[in-house]
């Protein structure tokens, strides 16, 4: 295997075969004059500039999601204790909003780092995240609740009327659903594993005695975020490819 073939194989892990071949072809063409060291240093530069966003975006999404889960729990418990809304329908509504909101926080951070703040789909996720977060923290103020509901209805209507925004909403919805589904599966499998290890209630001592349970939950949670971010990434590629084809037809 010669240098160019190895370089092409490496780049194929990050982009399409055709693009990888054209990049390596460019490097081979310039490398004739600049030498082998330049070729490999340039390849390292191409690889680094292509991949740095992905791991950073994933880590940020994980932390944002976990932070939001904790923050929303505190907010819901605190506001509930202070204002005592009727059990039904507020408890299921808060539960649903908290779960969707934390998933949206995770996906918004992922999109912002991976695709930049000007990305339409990321902006859409941030808009819904802002609305849900405001409702969770300030639902007991009727004016703010009313404004949030009106804004949500307006946003939903505007999204449904435009094809590109409809696709963006679809990406946000499917990714959030994937994360929530994977988290529910994590909770189910984790609880079965806990029961397998030790039936009955678990306290601090039980968790310390069975560290594999914490590890199992942690790994499955990371896997859940990986599934959701992979769904977002694939669907985003599909969206940008279709938009590119449209703009090529227009151009």
């Amino acid at each position: 295997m010669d240098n160019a073939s190895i370089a092409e194989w490496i780049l194929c892990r990050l982009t399409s075969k055709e693009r990888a071949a054209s990049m390596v072809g460019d490097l081979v063409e310039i490398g004739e004059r600049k030498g082998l060291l330049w070729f490999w240093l340039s390849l390292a530069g191409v690889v680094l500039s292509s991949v740095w966003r992905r791991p950073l975006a994933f880590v940020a999404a994980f932390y944002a999601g976990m932070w939001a889960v904790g923050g929303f729990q505190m907010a819901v418990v605190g506001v509930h204790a202070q204002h005592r809304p009727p059990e039904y329908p507020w408890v299921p509504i808060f539960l649903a909003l908290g779960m969707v909101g934390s998933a949206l926080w995770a996906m918004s951070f992922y999109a912002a780092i991976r695709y930049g703040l000007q990305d339409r789909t990321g902006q859409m996720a941030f808009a819904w995240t802002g609305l849900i977060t405001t409702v969770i923290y300030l639902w007991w103020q009727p004016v703010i609740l009313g404004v949030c509901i009106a804004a949500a209805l307006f946003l939903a209507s505007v999204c449904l009327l435009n094809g590109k925004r409809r696709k963006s909403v679809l990406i946000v919805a499917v990714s959030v659903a994937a994360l929530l589904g994977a988290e529910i599966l994590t909770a189910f499998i984790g609880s079965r594993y806990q029961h397998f290890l030790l039936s009955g209630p678990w306290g601090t001592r039980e968790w310390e005695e069975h560290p594999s349970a914490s590890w199992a939950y942690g790994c499955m949670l990371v896997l859940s975020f990986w599934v959701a971010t992979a769904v977002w990434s694939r669907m985003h590629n599909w969206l940008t490819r279709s938009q590119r084809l449209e703009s090529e037809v227009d151009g």
Partner: protein
Amino acid sequence: MYILDNLKKINYIVVLMKPPASLGEFEQVVLLAILRLEKHAYGVTIRFEIAACTGREPAPGALYTTLDRMEEKGIVHSWFGEATARRGGRAKRYFALTKAGLAALVSAQRAYRSLLDGLDLLGDANG
């Protein structure tokens, strides 16, 4: 129906009012190089054109990331050309500006020109 019609009107106005995409400095440099090269703009020639005009050779990583990002934004489009023996039988990926890309570049250059208006920055006094 009345509400739906009004929402459609608002949506239409929002689409019409959409400004051209904003471009960074390096993005403008790359787009101008592509324009200068006309139908011969691919990785190697774009890099050489930028080096010849600005005296700075862009790193291949920065150039490909910028080109991919601009393609995702619909500012440029690319197609694969002929494969040559010099490149080990690998095809060239050519680039051209889309309508949206040209509009964004014109808008950015107009902004530069209006900022330069009234200044003698490019005159004899500054070499």
